[in-house]
């Protein structure tokens, strides 16, 4: 696996790192305390082309390659997991449109998403429906040449400020996806505060009460809303979150290296205590392993290989585990300081916990990874035995 960055990718990473270090990280704790994300940061990301980065250039986006996009998610994730989640949900809506939009839908929405004229949010989860996302209780019916939606969506990242929601609902029992603009009569949002992590992700409950939208705002076909439309969006989401977790892990490691290099106990720096070295050694190793999985997912994604979906799942599962382990170790190394808001590592730990839940909980990823492993094992055994796989 060739993981050398091109000159352009190295240059882009420096630019992302500079943006994150200058304009995001210094303010992330304050935004976390205030539980809000200033629109000035979103506008700056739009101006730099970050919001539209993965959208094809023919639609006004950056047409960014998968690896460079991953590097952007890593740097943003290391500075502010909340901001990463805002970037992610926008990319998820764009991805669903790129893949399953009609020509008219793509031409209408993608340039607006790329330019930040509309900001996307992904509205799947409901009060009664989390992992069992194929069974949403929201409904849509055709009524007088329009879709009439009734939905209650919960934990919607950027729900407080997004202007275009990708909403999932059932049509006569079949899953479907709809594009709903904020101005739609009957749509209201209710800010969610007091979260453990992602406190500045502008999370909201989103309510649609007899919300009528044009028939052309159906995205994909009825019956394919979860499997294909949400499937495409969630694949993008897992990829972004995997890289964001890598950034979060790297941030915890860097903070720990800084702290252990300057803090003295028993007359020597923490870094000279063997048990601190043990923690740091594991942090370095796990971050490196997480990085390799992210690079592998990027390469497969660039190739459009079908295995990119499972490898993205594996990367998300592993990096989210690494992120929370490293954040907990970083807090441990910082001692009581790490439990306070004087250092960012306590925020890293709170945000890392949510990383294990969003875009599919770790338990859902484990089920899919294990089942895939058993399927591959059975296929390999079958090939060794020379048996055909299909009865014609």
């Amino acid at each position, binding site marked *: 696996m060739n993981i050398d960055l091109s000159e352009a990718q190295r240059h882009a990473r420096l630019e992302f790192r500079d943006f994150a270090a200058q304009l995001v990280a210094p303010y992330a704790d304050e935004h976390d305390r205030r539980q809000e994300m200033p629109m000035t940061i979103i506008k700056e990301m739009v101006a730099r082309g970050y919001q539209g980065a993965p959208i094809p250039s023919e639609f006004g986006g950056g047409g960014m390659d998968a690896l460079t996009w991953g590097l952007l998610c890593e740097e943003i994730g290391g500075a502010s997991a909340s901001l990463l989640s805002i970037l992610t949900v926008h990319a998820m809506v764009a991805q669903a449109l790129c893949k399953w939009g009609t020509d008219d839908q793509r031409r209408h929405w993608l340039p607006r998403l790329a330019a930040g004229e509309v900001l996307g949010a992904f509205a799947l989860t409901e009060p009664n429906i989390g992992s069992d996302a194929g069974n949403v209780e929201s409904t849509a019916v055709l009524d007088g040449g329009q879709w009439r939606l009734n939905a209650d969506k919960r934990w919607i990242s950027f729900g407080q400020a997004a202007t275009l929601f990708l909403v999932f609902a059932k049509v006569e029992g079949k899953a479907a996806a709809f594009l709903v603009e904020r101005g739609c009569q009957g749509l209201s949002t209710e800010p969610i505060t007091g979260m453990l992590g992602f406190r500045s992700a502008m999370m909201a409950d989103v309510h649609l009460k007899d919300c009528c939208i044009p028939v052309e705002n159906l995205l994909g076909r009825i*019956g394919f809303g979860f499997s*294909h439309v949400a499937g495409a969006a969630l694949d993008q989401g897992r990829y972004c979150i995997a890289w964001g977790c890598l950034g979060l892990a790297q941030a915890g490691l860097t903070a720990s290296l800084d702290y252990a290099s300057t803090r003295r106990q028993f007359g020597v720096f923490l870094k000279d205590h063997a048990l601190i070295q043990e923690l740091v050694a594991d942090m370095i190793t796990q971050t490196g392993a997480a990085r390799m999985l992210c690079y592998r997912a990027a390469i497969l994604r660039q190739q*459009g290989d*079908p295995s990119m979906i499972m490898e993205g799942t594996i990367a998300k599962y592993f990096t989210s585990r690494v992120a929370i382990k490293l954040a907990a170790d970083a807090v441990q190394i910082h001692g009581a300081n790490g439990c306070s808001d004087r250092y960012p590592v306590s925020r890293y730990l709170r945000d890392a916990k949510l990383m294990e839940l969003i875009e599919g909980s770790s338990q859902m990823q484990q089920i899919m990874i294990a*089942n895939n492993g*058993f399927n591959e094992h*059975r296929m390999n055994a079958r090939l060794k035995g020379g048996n055909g*796989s299909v*009865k014609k």
Partner: protein
Amino acid sequence: MNIDEVTLKTSDFVGQHVNTAEIDGDVDIFATGMVNSLFAMQLVLFVEKEFGAVVENEDLDLENFKSINALCNFVSRKLGLAAR
């Protein structure tokens, strides 16, 4: 590329992802719960990468994806291959 190659490659790919030892070419792999929720998009990517056919909005019809034989017919139509 001919229809036999399409059938062989499709059978192999689906065979790698179903949770059963053998699969009939006409069995509905979605209705029978043989595949997980990730498989739908994996199948789309497989068709696009392996056969160079872009799967688009108007192709979203269960009749195109529900079984190995349905998928082979769909790919053959996309590629303009002669039916068996």
